[in-house]
């Protein structure tokens, strides 16, 4: 089980990143990619223990990434205002669209997708840790009571 998890986890993470960055070309996008990436971290945490999972992404980093993800999204929108479009504008604000179908294309979509991916991945791990850690401490106190 542990060996499988260790073997599989990097591939899942790689696949998650692939889904995120190709969101504008193929099925997928920030949400699905972020969920895939986040669940790989959860997988590691489940199959080893919480510390091993925490080594991959610490608590503090997760919350930093979380705020950062949404904040990046918001600021991208504000940047559009700054460049002369309306809020969250893409073409109207002059983001370079590039050649459709190329990897670096679609202007703000590319940026926003990555931010969403970061946000969703960190959300899944944070949710998992918050619920699990509390259970563990409660379980620990119960055991000492006995």
């Amino acid at each position, binding site marked *: 089980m542990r060996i499988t998890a260790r073997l599989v986890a990097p591939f899942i993470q790689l696949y998650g990143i692939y889904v995120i960055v190709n969101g504008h070309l193929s*099925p997928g996008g920030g949400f699905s990619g972020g969920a895939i990436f986040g669940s790989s971290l959860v997988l590691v945490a489940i199959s080893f223990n919480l510390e091993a999972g925490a080594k991959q992404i610490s608590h503090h980093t997760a919350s930093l990434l979380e705020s950062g993800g949404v904040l990046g999204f918001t600021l991208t929108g504000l940047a559009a205002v700054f460049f002369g479009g309306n809020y969250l504008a893409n073409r109207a604000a002059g983001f370079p669209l590039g050649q459709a179908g190329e990897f670096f294309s679609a202007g703000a979509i590319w940026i926003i997708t990555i931010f969403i991916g970061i946000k969703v991945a960190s959300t899944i791990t944070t949710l998992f840790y*918050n619920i699990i850690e*509390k259970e563990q401490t*409660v379980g620990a106190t119960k055991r000492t009571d006995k």
Partner: protein
Amino acid sequence: MELLSGLINNYYYFVAIILFVIGTHTMLTHSNMIKKVIAMNIMDASVFLLFVAIGYVHGGRPPIIAGNEEVLYVNPLPGALILTGIVVAVSVTAYALSLIVKIHRTYGTVDCDEICKIRGDE
């Protein structure tokens, strides 16, 4: 008869409505909180099903543009909206579950009727 043929033609919509009612029923009659949350998800899922079914077009392909040839694509808007809706439902579920964890810790039960009893005794 008209009703029946209408239902058969639109059975996707009808199934969604039935699911919605099942969700409502479970939510209102079961006192177990976990079941209530599951019912909440069933309700949401039924509406998503209805929404996505609206967007389907016979013979349509997923809306990922490939090449320039004339192909029929399905309506992309409901899919995009439901992607948003699913994430919203997930976050509500996560919050509800954490609330249940907390309730279980303070009351020692996840059953609404028992909680009412406990509060009545106080």
